[in-house]
Structure formats: structure tokens, C-alpha cells
């Protein structure tokens, strides 16, 4: 995920507005509409996991997008971002000019809860009835004027982030809010429940003198103090130690009184707010009766059917893996011939020498080779975005939750784990939506076992070179089947790893796992495009920076030092004499038992910068070694390569071992860094690296040595 250059601090710009809403209410899509930016949106709760800001188009107002939340009492890390921000509004200098509460117009009742909580901060609040187009289709009518009148919101604007409806009006309304507007302090928007008010009175009266300091209604403070033991931390700085003492004893006193009257004090705010919604706002919008079967429900009759559901799930996954191979074939061939042509042209124009060698063998042979995998990565990202935006991802979580619970996780781990197939970094960040800390950390530990797109080039080249192109069972392409198998290896290992975590780090609390199943939606082409664009750009940037740099360094290491009488030696002897050759031979004893030669050893070291560097490394080494003068593809070179004693370097067994190594090894500095950041400790990233490295080494040892014992080569 990215942060923007437009980011401003709370204080240095008074013209900012916050944008809040339930998860999956289209908040980020609206934010993108208003700012012209293109943050990731999805049809899955919890896509926005951090604060982002951007300037509204043609305006000086800065908009801050916050993670989706159902209420202001936080349960998970991303929700805490919202409640902490809202709590800071007690100080006038932190108050935004306005708050935009985005509500899903098709789901108004539930969304209104958060809106009421926000309204009670007495900051100009614009309620945006998003997805109004969908609501109209469902014949849900909403009286916006009446809603505004009753809730005393600044404005209620029907809008559609999808079609751009209402966007202009939102911007105009924001612009027209005068600077430093002070709203009269209004009564809280809740229904008083009999007996409660009198029981709570002592606490409310105690808070009353602080009303202007706290900037929040004493009754709401009282209700929050009763429901959440941690809430007091937000108030400490406004009270002296003695006052705090008194406050705490008042809380206990009131709790005792409520308990005596059999009033469930923890849920008073929820009950009284929903009573307000039902009784006072009930006739403003037409409800969606529970007996009505929505289109999505009808679709789910098949898609989450006990038998057809899992079959559909497997078919979807199989289709995606096959597409990665078959659809990408043509563009990949095209890029390959483009690179060959460029290399040949450069070779023909440049005189023999260092420059030619650097350009053709180092740069084009190294970094250029990586470009070939661009189409596959785009296809993978496309399908993952499609699963998410359509709403199918949530169904996958629904169907797999039981399995996940068996291994001590929950359905919410499904999205981070599946995102891990694209890249571990956003995946680790999306684990923030998991409420339980233990589950969140274990999920993070498992994400690197999901084969990310950077590993795809390594798998592809090995599969293309050494797995025949035939079919198994007559219909499943063998190469796609092997690829799927490699992905499954990572997934199954994650299951075992989760079980081990469950044994040594068991979950203390009861699992809740509440998840909304959003309606199926047609993915927005715009949103799909930006997701592909962002990931594609980052892939090409890596290729153009890190991989290019490593290719050049590697070319140097593999070309120098030169021996005296250089010309008499073959390329092979020269490269073995070089720094890279020396390095490779130095670690060869370590990797030899796994079936790897020194060139692969060098690749394993360089791929710590980024996994796909493995391919460019091998490509550079083989290019330099090749003295036939004829250009040869990496695949041909790998097939032909032999040890001095005549054995082939790449046998089915060593190829398998190498793929297994890439499934398990924690070769990614960026993942290490993001885990360090997200867990705020060295322990977890070190644990990840430790367990995965041991796992990789031992598994490859078993595969290679065991395979040889069984008579495979």
C-alpha cells in the first residue's frame, strides 16, 4: 500500500475532512472519486487498512480516508486507527472541518449506527447515501431530506461512487461549510431506556463539569465507560489523579446498580441507538425484509452449495492456474523474441569487449529476462482482483472457515493468505483486519508460504524447461498441474505450520469470526485496471532498479578478476575463476546435498534481494559462460548444462528440489521489513526467516537425498 505526498498532519491545515464508514460501504471508491486518486478498492470488508489522504479535486480541502469500521469501539488494529482519530477530536485544533459518513444505501439500518456515533461529536457531518443506484434497483426508497431533518446532519446526499452521481454536490457542500463553524451541542441520538437514565445519572453528573473540555456528551462517555474497560485511557489526560480515582469508583458504583436491576450495561449504547433507529428513523427508509431473497442469495444457492460450492471453488482455482500458463504463452513468446532481437542487434552493432558483454550478457540477459514474466504476473493480479471485487472472496472465506478453524485460524485469514499469492507485503498488511492478535500474527507467519508472484518466474522457467507439455488424464495440462501442485505444497505446508503454531501458541480467547457476505457486484473496470497498473508498475520498477543493479553487479563479479593469459581459457574456466565463481564454489558444499551446483548457489544468494533475481542470475551466468557465439535461451542452456564429470546439472530430482526450496525459503528482504514493522518486534521476522530456512533446507535434503536412495536421478 502506498502513502501519498499530499499527507498533512492534523494541525498544519485546518481545511481537512475525514471520511468514515462501515467496511465495504464503498468508502474508498468515493474517496477516489473525490480526490481523483486511485487507491485499491474491493468487495471485501477491510481493504483500507491505514490512513490515506488526498486533496479533493480543484479544492484546498484535504480528505482523509480511514479504515472501515462498524462502530467507534475498536476491536482490531485497523478499527483502532479510527477510534483513536475520533478521540483526538476533543481538542479543537484536531477537529476536521467536516466528517463525511459514507453509508451503504442498500444496508442503511446497520450503517446508521456509526453515523449516529459520529454525529454526536457535533462536527458538521455529511451523510453520503452511497450505492444509491443499487438501492433504487432494489426499490429501497430513502427520504434524504427527512433523514437530514431528524438526525440534524449537515447534509444528506444520495450518491453513487460507481457512476459519479452526487460527487459534485458533496464537493460543493464541503466547500460551503464556513471555517470554524461551531454547532450547538445537541442531545445524544439515542433512546433513553427506562431505569437506565436514573442509574447512570451519578456518572453523568460527575462528567458534566468537564463537558466543554471533553467535547463529547457526558451520557455517551458514561455509556462507553460502562461497556469498555479500556475506554478510560482516552480520558486520563483530562482528569487529575484524584478525579480519576473518583471516576473509576463512580463507574463501579453505577455498574453495581445496573446489575442489581438486571440491566445489561455493556450493551446499553447499542440497544439505545438501535432503538433510536427503529423508532425514530424507521419510517424514513423502506426496509429490506428478511424474507426477501436477494439475487446474491439465489446465486449462492449454487456457489456456496454443500456439493457444488466446493466443486466451483476448485474449478475457479484450476481455471486461474491454467490461465496463468496458457493465456500468457503468446505475449511471453513475443517479449522473448523482442529481447533476443535487441540482444542480437546490440551484439551486431557493438564491438567485442567489455561494453558489449555488459549490455548483452549483463543487462539484457539479466534484467531483460525478468520482463518475460510480466504477462503472467498481470494475469495473476487480474484474477485475484476479480475474486475480491466480485465478492467471491468472501464466499471462499465462508466455505473455508471450518478448515481454517481446525488449524486454529479463522475465515478472515483467507484474504491475507490468498493475497500472499500476489505479494506478501500487502498481504501482511491486510492481516490487520484480524481482530485477534494471536491469529493475526500466526497468519502473518504463514503468508510467506503462499507462493508469491515473484516466485512464478522461477517455477515457470523450471517447469517450461523440464516438465513435458502433455496432458494428464487427457484434459489437465501437465505443466499447469505441476504449477498447481507447487502452489498446493505451500498451502498444505501452511496448514501444518498452523497446526504447530496452534500446539505451541494456542489461542486464548473464543473465536468469533463475524463476517459480512457482501452482495455480488460487477467488478469496476476502473478499479481492476488500477490494481493491475499498481502491481505491474511495481514489478517493472523492481526489474528496472534492484534487478538491473544486481544484474550489473553480478556481471562484474562473474567477469572479474581475469586470469593471466585470459584468451587461452574457455568461458567456463574464466567464470569459475571469477568472484562469482569463487563465491559459488565457496557455498557449493552447503547446497550440493540439495542437488544444486555453484551457479544455483549464487542465485540463491542474489535472490535474497528479490526472488525473481534467481532467473536473471542464472541467465547472466549462462550467457557469460556461453562461448559458442550463438545466442541460446536460458531454457536450452539449463537443459544442456553438465557437471565436469558429465552428469547433468538439472535432473528431474534437482529441479524438484529447487522448486521446493523456492516454496519454503524466506528469501525476501521486503517481507522481512514489513513483518518487522507490522509486529513491531524483531522476534517475528526472525522466527519467520528461521523456520522457513530450516524447512527449506531439510525438505530439499529429504527430496534430493531420499529421491536418490529411491533410485531417481
Amino acid at each position: 500500500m502506498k502513502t501519498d505526498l499530499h499527507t498533512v498532519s492534523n494541525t498544519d491545515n485546518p481545511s481537512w475532512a475525514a471520511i468514515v464508514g462501515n467496511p465495504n460501504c464503498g468508502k474508498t471508491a468515493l474517496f477516489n472519486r473525490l480526490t481523483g486518486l486511485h487507491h485499491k478498492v474491493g468487495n471485501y470488508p477491510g481493504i483500507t487498512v491505514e490512513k490515506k489522504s488526498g486533496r479533493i479535486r480543484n479544492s484546498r480541502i484535504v480528505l482523509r480516508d480511514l479504515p472501515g469500521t462498524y462502530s467507534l469501539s475498536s476491536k482490531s488494529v485497523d478499527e483502532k486507527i479510527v477510534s483513536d482519530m475520533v478521540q483526538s477530536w476533543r481538542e479543537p485544533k484536531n477537529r476536521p472541518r467536516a466528517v463525511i459518513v459514507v453509508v451503504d444505501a442498500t444496508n442503511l439500518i446497520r450503517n446508521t449506527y456509526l453515523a449516529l456515533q459520529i454525529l454526536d461529536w457535533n462536527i458538521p457531518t455529511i451523510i453520503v447515501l452511497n450505492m444509491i443506484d443499487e438501492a433504487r434497483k432494489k426499490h429501497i426508497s430513502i427520504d434524504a431530506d427527512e433523514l437530514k431533518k431528524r438526525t440534524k446532519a449537515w447534509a444528506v446526499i444520495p450518491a453513487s461512487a460507481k457512476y459519479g452521481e452526487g460527487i459534485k454536490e458533496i464537493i460543493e457542500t464541503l466547500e460551503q461549510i464556513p471555517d470554524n463553524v461551531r454547532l450547538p451541542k445537541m442531545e445524544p441520538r439515542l433512546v433513553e431506556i427506562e431505569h437506565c437514565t436514573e442509574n447512570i445519572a451519578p456518572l453523568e453528573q460527575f462528567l458534566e463539569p468537564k463537558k466543554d473540555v471533553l467535547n463529547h456528551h457526558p451520557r455517551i462517555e458514561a455509556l462507553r465507560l460502562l461497556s469498555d474497560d479500556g475506554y478510560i485511557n482516552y480520558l486520563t489526560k483530562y482528569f487529575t489523579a484524584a478525579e480519576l480515582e473518583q471516576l473509576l469508583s463512580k463507574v463501579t458504583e453505577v455498574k453495581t446498580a445496573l446489575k442489581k436491576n438486571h440491566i445489561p450495561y455493556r450493551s446499553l449504547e447499542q440497544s439505545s441507538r438501535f432503538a433510536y433507529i427503529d423508532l425514530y428513523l424507521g419510517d424514513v427508509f423502506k426496509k429490506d425484509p428478511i424474507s426477501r431473497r436477494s439475487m446474491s442469495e439465489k446465486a449462492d444457492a449454487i456457489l456456496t452449495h454443500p456439493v457444488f460450492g466446493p466443486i466451483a471453488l476448485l474449478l475457479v482455482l484450476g481455471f486461474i492456474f491454467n490461465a496463468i500458463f496458457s493465456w500468457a504463452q503468446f505475449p511471453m513468446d513475443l517479449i522473448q523474441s523482442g529481447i533476443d532481437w535487441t540482444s542480437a542487434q546490440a551484439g551486431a552493432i557493438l564491438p567485442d569487449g567489455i561494453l558489449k558483454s555488459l549490455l548483452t550478457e549483463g543487462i539484457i540477459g539479466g534484467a531483460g529476462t525478468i520482463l518475460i514474466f510480466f504477462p503472467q504476473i498481470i494475469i495473476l493480479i487480474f484474477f485475484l482482483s476479480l475474486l475480491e471485487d466480485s465478492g467471491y472472496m468472501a464466499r471462499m472465506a465462508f466455505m473455508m472457515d471450518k478448515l481454517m478453524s481446525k488449524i486454529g485460524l479463522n475465515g478472515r485469514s483467507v484474504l491475507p493468505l490468498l493475497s500472499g499469492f500476489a505479494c506478501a507485503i500487502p498481504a501482511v498488511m491486510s492481516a490487520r483486519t484480524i481482530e485477534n492478535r494471536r491469529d493475526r500474527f500466526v497468519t502473518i507467519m504463514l503468508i510467506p508460504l503462499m507462493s508469491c508472484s515473484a516466485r512464478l518466474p522461477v517455477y515457470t522457467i523450471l517447469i517450461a524447461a523440464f516438465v513435458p507439455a502433455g496432458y494428464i488424464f487427457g484434459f489437465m495440462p501437465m505443466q499447469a498441474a505441476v504449477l498447481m501442485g507447487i502452489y498446493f505444497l505451500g498451502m498444505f505446508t501452511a496448514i501444518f505450520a498452523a497446526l504447530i503454531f496452534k500446539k505451541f501458541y494456542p489461542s486464548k480467547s473464543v473465536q468469533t469470526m463475524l463476517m459480512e457476505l457482501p452482495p455480488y457486484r460487477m467488478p469496476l473496470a476502473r478499479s481492476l485496471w488500477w490494481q493491475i497498473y499498481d502491481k505491474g508498475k511495481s514489478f517493472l520498477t523492481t526489474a528496472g532498479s534492484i534487478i538491473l543493479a544486481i544484474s550489473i553487479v553480478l556481471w562484474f563479479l562473474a567477469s572479474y578478476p581475469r586470469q593471466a593469459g585470459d584468451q587461452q581459457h574457455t568461458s567456463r574456466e574464466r567464470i569459475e575463476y571469477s568472484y562469482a565463481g569463487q563465491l559459488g564454489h565457496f557455498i557449493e558444499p552447503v547446497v550440493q546435498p540439495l542437488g544444486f551446483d555453484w551457479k544455483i548457489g549464487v542465485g540463491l544468494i542474489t535472490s535474497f534481494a528479490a526472488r525473481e533475481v534467481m532467473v536473471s542470475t542464472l541467465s547472466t551466468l549462462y550467457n557469460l559462460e556461453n562461448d559458442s557465439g550463438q545466442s541460446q535461451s536460458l531454457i536450452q542452456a539449463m537443459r544442456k548444462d553438465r557437471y565436469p564429470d558429465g552428469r547433468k546439472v538439472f535432473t528431474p530430482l534437482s529441479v524438484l528440489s529447487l522448486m521446493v526450496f523456492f516454496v519454503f525459503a524466506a528469501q525476501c528482504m521486503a517481507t522481512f521489513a514489513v513483518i518487522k514493522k507490522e509486529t513491531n518486534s524483531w522476534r517475528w521476522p526472525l522466527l519467520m526467516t528461521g523456520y522457513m530456512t530450516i524447512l527449506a533446507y531439510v525438505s530439499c535434503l529429504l527430496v534430493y537425498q531420499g529421491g536418490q536412495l529411491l533410485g531417481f536421478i
Partner: protein
Amino acid sequence: MREIKLADLKPGEEATICSLTGNSSGNDRLRELGLIDGTPLRVIKFAPLGDPIEIKVRGFYLSLRKSMARQIRVRLRGNIEN
């Protein structure tokens, strides 16, 4: 009518929430989603592996684990529109 557990309902059955008896943090979240006493709901289905359970409540579809559904006491209702 008798109170039963939400987890014991069959797909398609409609019921009204009587009380939430479970642990507090899960209940807080359920209540924030609008599952308060008196709220009508309909059971859609159980996931292919038998857990979690999907319900429709207050106009949206919610998936929750059976362990939690066992802590929600409901009263069956006839086919009345809410």
C-alpha cells in the same frame, strides 16, 4: 413460544432474537451490527463443512460460527413480514 438456540434452527427458518448469552466481546460486535433483542432474522444456510452459519438480518447477510450461534437465543416466528 419456546426459546431455542440460533444454531439449532434449520435453513429457511425465521426467528426473533431473545437474548445474547455469550462472552462479551463477541456480543458487543453482534449488537453493533444491530442484532439486539427483538431483531428478526432468517437462517440462510450452513457452510458446506457444516460451520459457519449464514443468516440474513437487518437487510444484510452475516456469517457467524456455530459456537457463537449457540449463544444466541431466539424464538421461532411464523411467516410474517417484518
